[in-house]
Every structure is written in C-alpha cells, then in structure tokens.
C-alpha cells in the first residue's frame, strides 16, 4: 500500500523522471505540473486529518534500515511552503525551462525537500538532504560550473559535518529515529541537572551542535557560510531559484528547528539561559543578525538583478535565524511566520526576475530601465512583492517582521534589536535600487518591444501575490496554524489581529485606514487639474535640452556612497578568504567532482552508502 506521505514525497520525482523520459514539449510540462500539484493537494487534504489526530506516520524498512516519516503541524507548515512555492516555481518553469534535464532535477529537489520536512529519522533526513543538494547542484552545474563548484564544496562541507554528527549520535544512542534521539538527550539533560554522568559529554555536545550548525548554516546561507548562495542562486533557471531560495533554504531553517527538537533541552540545561532565551541560541541569533546586515549591505551594492535577490535572500534568512535563535515560543513562531512570508515574497521576486530575464534577456541593472510601462502586470506583482519585503503594512512581510521585532525586543536584546532595525532599512535600500533600475527611468531603446509576462508565469506570480496580500491582511490565519505547533495560544487575537499582550497588530484596521487615507488623497488629487503625460526627456535638466541619446538614469553604482562609506569593511571578504583556501583545494575538488558529483546518481548513492557503513562500523 502506498502511503500518502510517500505520494507527497515521491510524486515530484516520479513526474520528473517521466518528464525526462517523455521529452516532448507540452507533455513534460503537464506531467511536471501534475507532479507538483499532487503533493499540494494531498497536503491540503492532510490538514483535515491533522485536525483530528496529532500526526500521520509511516515507516518502511529497506535493507535493514528503517526509514520513518511523519507529518505533524510543524512539518505540515514547512511542507505547505514547499508545496505552494514549489508549485508556483514549476508553473514558472513552464515558461523558462529549456529542456527535460531541468525538469528532472527541479522536481527531484522538490522531492528532496519534502523528504527532509517529513523525515522522522536522521538517516532519511540525511538521504533526502543529499538528494535535495545533489539535484540543486545539478541545476546550478548546468548554468555555471564555477558557481556550482563553490556550492558543491560548501555542500560537501555541510554534508560531512552532518554525517559526522549523525555518526556520533548513532554511536552513542544506537538509533536514528528522532523520538529516541530526543528522548536520550532529554534524559541526558535530566542527568546533568542532577549532577550524574551524562551520555554525551559537554564537549561532544558542543561538537554535535557545531557540526549541525555548520550543516544547516550552509544550506540556509548563514554568515560566514553564505558565499555559495549568491552565485548558486543567480546562476540557474530563475524560476527554479524561486524554489531554491524560497524552499530549499527553508530546509536549513527546518534543520535549525530540528536542533531545537533534538538537542534543545540538553543544550539549554547545559549552557543556561539569558532571560527566557537559551544561551546557545544566542550563537544562532547573532549569526542571524550579522547575516541580515552583511546580506543586506551586499545586496544593495550588486549590479546584477539575480545577485541582488540572492543576497536579499541571505539577509531575510538572517531574520528567521534571529527568531529561532532567541528561542522563546513566540520568537520561534515569528521565525516560522517569517519563513512562510519569505518563501512567499522571495518566491514571487524570483519569478519576477525570471520574467524579466525571460523577456529581456538581460541580467545587469545597467541594461534595464523603464520597464513598468512595458510590463504592467509584472510590475504590479513586483509592487506587491516590494511592499511585502520592505515590510510595509498591511502585507505579510510586515506581520512576520513585526512579530520578530516584538519577540526579540521583548526579550531585552538591544543589540539584536538594532540589527533588525538596520535590516529593515537596508531592505528599503536595495529594493529601491531594484525598482529604480528595472522599472523606472529611461528605457534603453532595445527594450522597447518587451512584452509582458507569459501566462504560466503570470499565474504563478498571481498565486504568490495573492497569498502575500491575504496573509498580510489576515495574519491570524497563519498565527492560528502556528499556535497549533506549540499547542497553545501564544499569539492571541482574531484572524485579523495578532495580540501579544505587550503589542498588537491588526491587519484589517490598517488596510481600512490606509484605504481611507488613500481615498482622501485621491479626492484631493482628482479635484486638481488634469494631468498631461510627458516623456522622460521633458524633465528638469537644469534648463538644457536632452534627447534619448543621453543616459539619464543612474544605471550603475547606484549606492556608490554606501560603498565608499563601507570601503573598509568591504575589503574583508569571506568569499576571497575561501577562494584563497580554495585555490589549493580546487585541484582536490576537481578530482572529487570528477569521481563523486559527476552526475551519476548511482555512483553517488553507492558512495554515500559506503561512507555510512564505514561510519556506522566505526561508531559501533
């Protein structure tokens, strides 16, 4: 009997393989859409099941290993992110995918993500993690070898870190499934409180924590392991990046949550708390804070539209990490909320980027401009996405950001609070850069025949934009689901309102009063004189006549002053540090790549199995 969890996990992969085999335009798209839609449908159906029972479990035994899967509220939320954004990304790929190769690996990575979210033991978690990494790596490899190499190196680093951590755990616990591991660590915590000997020493615990942090940090793109992300996000199919950044990075976030689930109690008792926040979470939170700032500042200085959003993704993941790191129930809820909204708006953004690149064929900001007139639908979507990312009420980006702010500041963490404020401003900054360079200003004449978004992309964008608006005006919908994870009313209020006790946010009132305000302004506007449309050359140029021959838009180095202010800090680049290390690692990496990540699925699987067996033997 095939369980619904198996369908959720393997439907995309199956569709991908089918699309790969039946390499016929039209059919493969249809298959792929079905492949992405089926898990979504099953997940929606599972919602009702979850209302009556706490979880849906399933396990299979395969050559001695027992693979366990579970769907409960937390994994349902994350799987829904994957479902919605993955579906939208697949819709987008209908327009942008070039061949069946992309379909195979895009859908394979979706399978990997589902597997990670639904896994209930470390071994299946790891295997699906690697499937996801491998598939996304193949997607990058197709577009850019160098970027993929960087991604590969850091992924391998993360993979080994995780593998070693799993090995250590298995050696001591003797089981892989989350429940046992969690129980052991819980008992350990109790023992350490009572002062008796613990199974894991303090140093081992730190090691496991550090290894997991590295593994998940790589995937999430945490500073200073973020260096792969800008290249990998930008050097692939941009519709796929919607999934890559929107969903795959959430696997890293989910991993951090797994740290909490498995090690949380032990770590908390071992290292203590600051206020209500665990000390070990501080590491995550501060890494997150630095990630916000570094990612945001670098995003503002990019000249390539894809790079800008890649760095922006890094910056937004930082928010989620801050929320997770603070570690109170409220802040974790806020972090998951932000994970949802990040997936929604960043998925939307990358679909917009995909549309722009698909229609214009340009990626540099200096080649664009004035597209709002030519691509009104895409621009409308971009408008929603911009407002959402910038955290403008009443869109979803504000609700989640607000929760993180309140959660963090309420825990008396001034420095993190400052970082968050800086992060929200830097969000404004790079979004304006994007808006100005792409949508406004003088349009290069070669873009004069640009058409609007193709239908599938438009539909995909529409879905995400709608959710951005709906979850913003009615933030209670999401908050209600999040409360179920913890099983208590952490965020009170109606579906329109978030009530924390020390702060309230009502999306509906804001919408109403914003509409009222805009109406008042519009009345004043429409009472005024009729407007006349003028071209870009008929503007203030200090009195001089200009023609379209002149370049009137700041296309390059828009934030040069910022660059100069930060010149000292920009000189310190982790990317370059890694490159220096990498220059001698490169030969090794090339060899490794030749033998391992050579695109041969079989060899890869065998290799992993061998490593696992060796580790297991060594551990025992």
């Amino acid at each position, binding site marked *: 009997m095939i369980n619904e969890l198996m369908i959720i996990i393997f439907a995309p992969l199956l569709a991908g393989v089918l699309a790969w085999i039946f390499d016929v335009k039209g059919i493969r798209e249809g298959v792929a859409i079905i492949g992405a839609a089926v898990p979504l449908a099953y997940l929606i159906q599972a919602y009702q099941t979850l209302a009556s029972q706490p979880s849906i479990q399933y396990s299979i035994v395969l050559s001695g290993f027992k693979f366990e899967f579970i769907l409960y509220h937390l994994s349902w939320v994350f799987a829904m992110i994957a479902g919605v954004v993955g579906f939208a990304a697949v819709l987008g790929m209908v327009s942008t995918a070039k061949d069946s190769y992309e379909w195979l690996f895009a859908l394979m990575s979706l399978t990997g993500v589902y597997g990670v979210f639904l896994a209930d033991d470390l071994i299946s978690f790891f295997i699906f993690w690697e499937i996801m990494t491998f598939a996304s790596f193949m997607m990058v490899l197709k577009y850019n070898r160098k970027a993929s190499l960087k991604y590969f190196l850091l992924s391998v680093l993360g993979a080994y870190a995780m593998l070693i951590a799993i090995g250590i755990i298995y050696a001591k616990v003797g089981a892989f499934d989350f429940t046992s591991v969690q129980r052991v660590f819980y008992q350990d915590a109790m023992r350490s409180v009572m002062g008796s000997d613990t199974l894991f020493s303090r140093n081992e615990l730190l090691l496991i924590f550090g290894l997991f942090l590295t593994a998940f940090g790589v995937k999430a793109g945490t500073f200073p392991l973020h260096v792969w992300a800008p290249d990998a996000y930008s050097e692939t199919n941009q519709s796929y990046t919607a999934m890559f950044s929107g969903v795959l990075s959430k696997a890293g976030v989910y991993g951090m949550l797994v740290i909490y689930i498995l090690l949380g109690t032990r770590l908390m008792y071992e290292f203590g708390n600051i206020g209500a926040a665990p000390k070990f979470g501080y590491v995550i939170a501060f890494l997150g804070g630095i990630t916000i700032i570094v990612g945001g500042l670098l995003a503002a200085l990019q000249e390539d539209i894809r790079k800008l959003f890649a760095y922006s993704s890094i910056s937004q993941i930082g928010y989620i990490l801050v929320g997770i790191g603070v570690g109170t129930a409220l802040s974790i809820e806020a972090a998951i909320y932000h994970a949802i909204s990040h997936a929604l708006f960043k998925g939307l953004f990358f679909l917009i980027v995909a549309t722009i690149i698909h229609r214009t064929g340009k990626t540099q900001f*200096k*080649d664009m401009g*004035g597209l709002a*007139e*030519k691509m009104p639908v895409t621009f409308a979507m971009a408008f929603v996405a911009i407002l959402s990312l910038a955290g403008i009420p009443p869109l979803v980006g504000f609700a989640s950001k607000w929760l993180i702010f309140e959660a963090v500041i309420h825990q008396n963490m001034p420095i993190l609070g400052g970082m968050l404020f800086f992060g929200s401003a830097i969000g404004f900054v790079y979004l304006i850069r994007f808006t100005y360079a792409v949508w406004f200003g*003088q*349009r*290069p*004449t*070669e873009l*004069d025949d640009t058409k609007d978004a193709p239908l599938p992309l438009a539909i995909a964008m529409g879905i995400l934009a709608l959710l951005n608006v709906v979850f913003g005006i009615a933030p209670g919908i999401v908050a209600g689901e999040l409360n179920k994870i913890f099983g208590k009313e952490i965020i009170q209020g109606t579906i329109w309102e978030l009530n924390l006790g020390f702060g309230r946010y009502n999306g509906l009132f804001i919408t109403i009063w914003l509409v009222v305000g805009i109406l008042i302004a519009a009345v004043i506007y429409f009472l005024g004189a009729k407007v*006349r*449309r*003028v*071209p*870009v*050359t*008929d503007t*203030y*140029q*200090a*009195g*001089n006549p*200009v*023609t*379209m*021959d*002149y*370049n*009137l*838009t*700041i*296309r*390059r*180095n*828009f*934030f*040069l*002053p910022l*660059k100069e202010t930060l010149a000292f800090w920009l000189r310190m680049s982790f990317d370059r540090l890694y490159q220096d290390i990498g220059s001698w690692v490169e030969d090794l990496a090339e060899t490794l790549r030749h033998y391992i990540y050579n695109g041969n699925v079989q060899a890869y699987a065998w290799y992993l199995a061998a490593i696992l067996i060796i580790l297991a033997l060594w551990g025992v």
Partner: protein
Amino acid sequence: MMVSQSELVREARENGMDLLPLDKDTYELFFGPQHMATENFSIILKMDGHRVVKAIANPGFLHRGFEKLAEYRPWHTNIALLLRICVPEPDVPEAIYSMATEEILGWEIPERAQWIRTTVLEMARVSAYLFWIMGLSFKLGVYTAGQWAAAYRERLMALFEQLTGARVYHIYTIPGGVRRDIPNDRWLRQLKDTVEYIKGKLPDFDHLVFENYITFRRMEGIGVMDKKFALAEGVTGPNIRATGVPYDVRRADPYLLYPELDFEVPVLKDGDALARALVRRYELEQDLYILEQLVEMGPPGGPYKVEDPRLKNLPRFKVPAGDAFAHVESTKGDFGAYVVSDGKNKPYRVQIRGPSIAHGIRVLEQLLVGARIADVPVILMSLDNCPPDIDR
C-alpha cells in the same frame, strides 16, 4: 496629449535613427545654468554613482561681445559698458580700463583720485568677499551666515550709493580720475563705522562657517591643486595663494596707493577647497584693515580728476595710438585689460582678461574629476568662478 517614451522612440525609428543611450556605465548630468549652485554657467558632468567621471565646462551664456562693442563706443562711454564684465565687483574693470587708457595717454592721476580709487576698489573687494561668503554658505547649507553676509554687504552698497549714485554699476572710475568727489565728511565717518561693524561681525562667520566642524569635513582635501599645476594653468588670486605662491598684484605690480599701505598677503599651502576659503577669509580681514588705514590717512586735497580741456567734449576725446596692459587684484584673481588705440575717439581693441577664464574652465574640469556631486558646488564656490568674466 499623451507623449510617452515609446512614441519618441517610434518617431525616431521612422526617421531612420536608432536611439541608444551613450554609455550605460555612466550617466550625464547637466549642472546648470538653471541651477542654484551655478550662476549662468553650465557644466556637463559624466557621472558614475555620485562621482564625477568627466566634466565639461560650457560657458557662454553671458557673452555679449564687450570687446567688440567697445570698439564702437567712445573712450569714456566704454566705462559704462565694460564694468558689466564683473558683476560682483564692477569697479575692477573700470579701474583696469582706466589705468590702461591713462598709460597710453601718459597721464598721472591726482592723489585724491588715487585715494578714492583705492578706497572704492577695497570696498568692492570687501563687498565681493561678503557676497562670496553668502554664496559659499548657501552652497554649504548654513543659510544663516549667508543671510547675514548679504545684509552686511548692504551697508557697503549704501556707501557706494552715496559716493557714486548707484548700487551695483557705479560707472565711477573714468580715465583721468573719478567721476565725482567724495560727497562729504559724513561719508568717511560712515565708512569708518561700517568697516568697524563688519570687522566686529567676522567672528560670527568664523563660528558659522570657517571654524565649523562640518565645513572642515566638507572642504578638506576637496579639489586639491598643487603649486606646479596652478602655475601651469595660469591660476591667479586667492586660488594660487592657497597653493603657496605669494602672488598678489597689489604687491607684485603695485598701483594706486598700495605701495604706501600696510597689509599682508595670506598664503596657505594645502591648495584644497578649505585653504582657498580660508585665504579669502583672511583677505577679507586684510581688506578691512586696509580700509581702516585709508580712512585714517584721509583723502588728500586737490582735484579728483585730471584737468584736461579734452575732457570737456567726451565723444570727441581722442587717445594717441599705442597699447597698454594694466591689471589689478580682484577677489577672483589677476584682472587685466589690454587696450590698443589707433588714435581715434574709440579704442581699436580692448581685451579683458578675466581671472575666471583660467580657473573656471580647465582647472575646474580637472578638479571636478573624482569629486562627489555634493562637492561640485563647493569646488565651484571655492574657486570663486565668475561666469561673466569668462564670457565677456
């Protein structure tokens, strides 16, 4: 009427032109003439971010062809024309033209006229410096200092008005002396009071502008010229003194009463915008000191212009053939006139050498490269570029 960019492009394409932005790495910024920082002068800037990559000065908005017009007007009438070359201190073109003409004529002007001319030139310098302080502080954004400077300048305007009958264009110095005598002793007293008053107000400007932390940050290291560069480019006046060259026409080529007066020529070595500003600030103090001395000295007796029968019939006033070069120190620099006469009642050729032609075109273009857009007005103001004397 809907005109959009698309229509413009379509129209151009129908006419067989393919419009392409010049260079997508940089953009063009037209700085002036309709801009608060430039008087009727234009700089075309090629910008990268907020840095200037290339600057092209575009003068000529104020060109009226004075040098040609002067050939059509009698010797004395030209005074009424040529003073319009330098609007902030119109006495300077009057003085140089008169001095050159007098040299051709071989006239020595009476002592009283010399005293009056020196006083008028120094008053013009003070008023021009106050005007410059106003310009600088408006560009820097400290409007208070600018407003005050313009208000103090009004006191000098009132004195000018009593002396010459006009606020701005005095038409006062003529070949052979000055047009009319000092009105009365009260004027001298007023001059003394005004000088004291302005001197008492200088600390205010120091606090607001010249010793202000933000001014230092804004002007330090901006638009640096070194000595060699400044000399090669023919820069004169406070601008060259800020690079360490003590060249002041009043000392180097003394005229009028300057050999008898005691004053210092302030020289700074840095050559940046701040040094130029400070040199001007010190010179303002020196000029006030000179005026004090002049008032102390008092006007000598005697006629205020050359007694010559030919001056009775000015339209038929003829100057013997010959040529002469005369120059004075204006606040902008070395202001010179080269006058050629062929013996008729009109000059054969008048060439005015405005100081800004040296520092307002080539020097400006070179100093602006690499400057921030916020520095452009500051550099422009620190050079004290006067467009009319470029354009003539």
